[in-house]
């Protein structure tokens, strides 16, 4: 067991979308919001270490981005480490922050995720959208991530009879949730028919099965639980953390209908947790494509293999359902600024477990899970939280 337990005492994020602000302004806004959310305040000089999750999309500060966070967060010399695991960058940055506290080495840590994606011509964006895939085999066969998840979706449909309607329902639900989230990129309800008839991108996935290209940043302030009580009466406790890796290319994996990294990360996280899956109030899952949410539900053990579609079609994962998934709109509708997503998921947990999620508040939310995936499953983190 770790010698200390970590808690989130502050969390903040920018709006997600195609924003006018550049990377520095986004970092500043998210970090300031996180500090402002600490009920009794915390001095910036108390932050002993920081972790920045970012891919450096479009080539922005592809080296040494940490220094920019140190400047914009006014950390006055505290060390900053950049963590890059593609779309799971902030999930792994959060894990690094949790470990720094659990080890007893640090008692206050800042975790930030950032991506600025919309500031380059579309051809250059298409180049960057594929850089985290396997470049030597998958990309040489003409695949980007939409294509890789299209392959996974085709196999899931083949083995389990998963329907296009079930995939569409993931998008419909997450758009409905995003309507209630003022930070979300897409605040527009969509119908199942609109998803099914949207232009095809990588069959069986259409445009409305895919997450958008998004700008945004999110920041979390972590402390030890003993210190947390000085900052707030209602810290959010970290009760489990797991992470795992898998092969870069899907062709090298045993299964095409399950991400082993997600399964292993969940096993590790729940091994330490005082409670199991059945007691979750809600989950923030990595739905970069609609099929990814179904895979996550099954790999996390929230439904049996092949069972996520029925659960989704029965609205059990919608707000008001048995186990709400992605109450903030998810990557699909809140938006997916690659390096920021893992931190933004924890921001939603911070709001929900403190009863501050306003119109999308889940009644009596007490226990939550976040799940962040790098690429098509080359890496994954699972983190478990509990209200204090």
């Amino acid at each position, binding site marked *: 067991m770790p010698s200390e337990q970590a808690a989130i005492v502050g969390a903040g994020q920018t709006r997600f979308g195609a924003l006018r602000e550049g990377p520095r302004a986004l970092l500043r806004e998210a970090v300031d919001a996180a500090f402002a959310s600490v009920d009794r305040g915390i001095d910036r000089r108390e932050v002993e270490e920081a972790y920045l999750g970012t891919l450096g999309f479009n080539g922005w500060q592809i080296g040494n981005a940490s220094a920019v966070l140190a400047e914009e967060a006014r950390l006055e010399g505290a060390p900053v480490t950049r963590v890059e695991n593609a779309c799971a960058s902030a999930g792994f940055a959060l894990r690094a922050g949790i470990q720094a506290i659990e080890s007893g080495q640090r008692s206050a840590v800042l975790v930030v995720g950032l991506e600025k994606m919309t500031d380059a011509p579309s051809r250059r964006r298409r180049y960057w959208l594929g850089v985290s895939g396997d470049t030597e085999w998958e990309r040489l*066969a003409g695949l980007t991530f939409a294509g890789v998840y299209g392959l996974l979706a085709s196999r899931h449909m083949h083995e389990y009879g998963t329907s296009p309607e079930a995939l569409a329902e993931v998008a419909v639900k997450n758009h409905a949730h995003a309507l209630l989230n003022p930070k979300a990129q897409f605040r527009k309800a969509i119908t199942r028919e609109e998803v099914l008839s949207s232009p095809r991108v990588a069959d069986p996935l259409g445009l409305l099965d895919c997450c958008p290209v998004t700008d945004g940043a999110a920041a979390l302030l972590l402390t030890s639980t003993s210190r947390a009580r000085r900052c707030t009466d209602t810290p959010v406790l970290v009760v489990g953390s797991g992470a795992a890796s898998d092969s870069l290319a899907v062709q090298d994996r045993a299964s095409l209908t399950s991400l082993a990294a997600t399964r292993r990360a969940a096993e590790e996280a729940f091994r330490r947790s005082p409670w199991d899956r059945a007691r979750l109030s809600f989950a923030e899952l990595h739905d970069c494509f609609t099929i990814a949410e179904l895979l996550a539900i099954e790999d996390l053990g929230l439904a049996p293999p092949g069972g996520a579609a029925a659960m989704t079609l029965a609205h059990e994962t919608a707000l008001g359902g048995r186990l709400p998934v992605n109450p903030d709109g998810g990557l699909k509708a809140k938006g997916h600024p690659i390096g920021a997503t893992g931190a933004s998921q924890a921001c939603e947990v911070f709001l929900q477990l403190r009863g501050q999620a306003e119109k999308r508040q889940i009644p009596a939310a007490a226990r939550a899970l976040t799940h962040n995936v790098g690429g098509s499953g080359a890496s994954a983190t699972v983190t478990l939280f509990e209200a204090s």
Partner: protein
Amino acid sequence: MAVLRAAALAEGAARVSGLPQCAPDEDRFTLLVAAAELALGEDPVAAAAPLESLTVWTEAAPELAEQLQTALGLGRLPARSVGGDPARFADMLADPSTPPGLHLAVDAGPGSAARAIALWVGTGGSGGIEVAGVDGEPVDPAGTVAQSPVSLTRELVGSANGDGLRSVQIPGTRVGLRAKRLGPFPGEESWNPASASPAHLANPQAAGGEVDLGTVSEGAYLPLATYLEDLPSRWRFEAERCAACNGLSFPARGRCKRCGRLDGLSRERLGRDGGTVEAVTTVRPGAQPSEFDFQVQRSGAYDVVLARLHPDVRVTLQVTDATAGSARIGMTVNTRLRRLYPMEGAWRYGRKALLRLETAR
């Protein structure tokens, strides 16, 4: 007299989406490889054991012969390009002392399809085409005239499959050739117009040179050195078998994937044909990596499949020569070497899948 123990034809271009188009992923290198694979069969290295040389009948740069050695796994054979003179080619065929060898030729002129041939010239055996030189007056003044090694070979094979004994005249010489079919030979079916690819047009890129190879792709950067590292796996589907644990590793990267050993690994070639499709997607225009923009502008959407080549090996393959959306899980695929995209001043090549449509359920 010489005997053509194997003779195969590969023609460029195919119908895509029901419209006659040039295949943007073919060029003379991929056509030559296709012809040689048809002539040499499933295991070119074993088939070529009795051969003494590899001759490319084109004016091409020397690297073409070298690339062909790599693609076919025939590095042990001395290889050279000797130019496309049909008279010299005819002399080679007519000379009874020509040593056993593999002869490759390609022609691609404006207005005609790109065509490549592969001939296994040797003596003995039961099948094949017997070729004999005829000196003196043209034996058949009304007979056909051949302008290149490829057209000469077409005429020979056509003659041999007809009444069995005719002659072909070489312009500018008094030499003729007579061909006689001895029996079935590898590659024979490729000459049958019914089994050949659908109607095709000239591919202006087939002869090379039309794309600015100096353009460095805006796609994900795959340095030439890294790409070259995996060529035996990429072009010939070579895997590594571990002597200690019997694990099979693909691509071959010098370490057993199962037990981690670096020694005791032997090369094993996976079948290039007969893989089974396990997953399918259709990549629509706009969803392709930007380095495939050139191809998509010419032939539109394409399918990509995950195909199982062996109980322990799956590979990601783009589908070619098929209407997008045709691939199905469970289908069998064959593979061919095709052109991918230019980067660092050279074309990158890899294997693509051909659907065996009759295997659709």
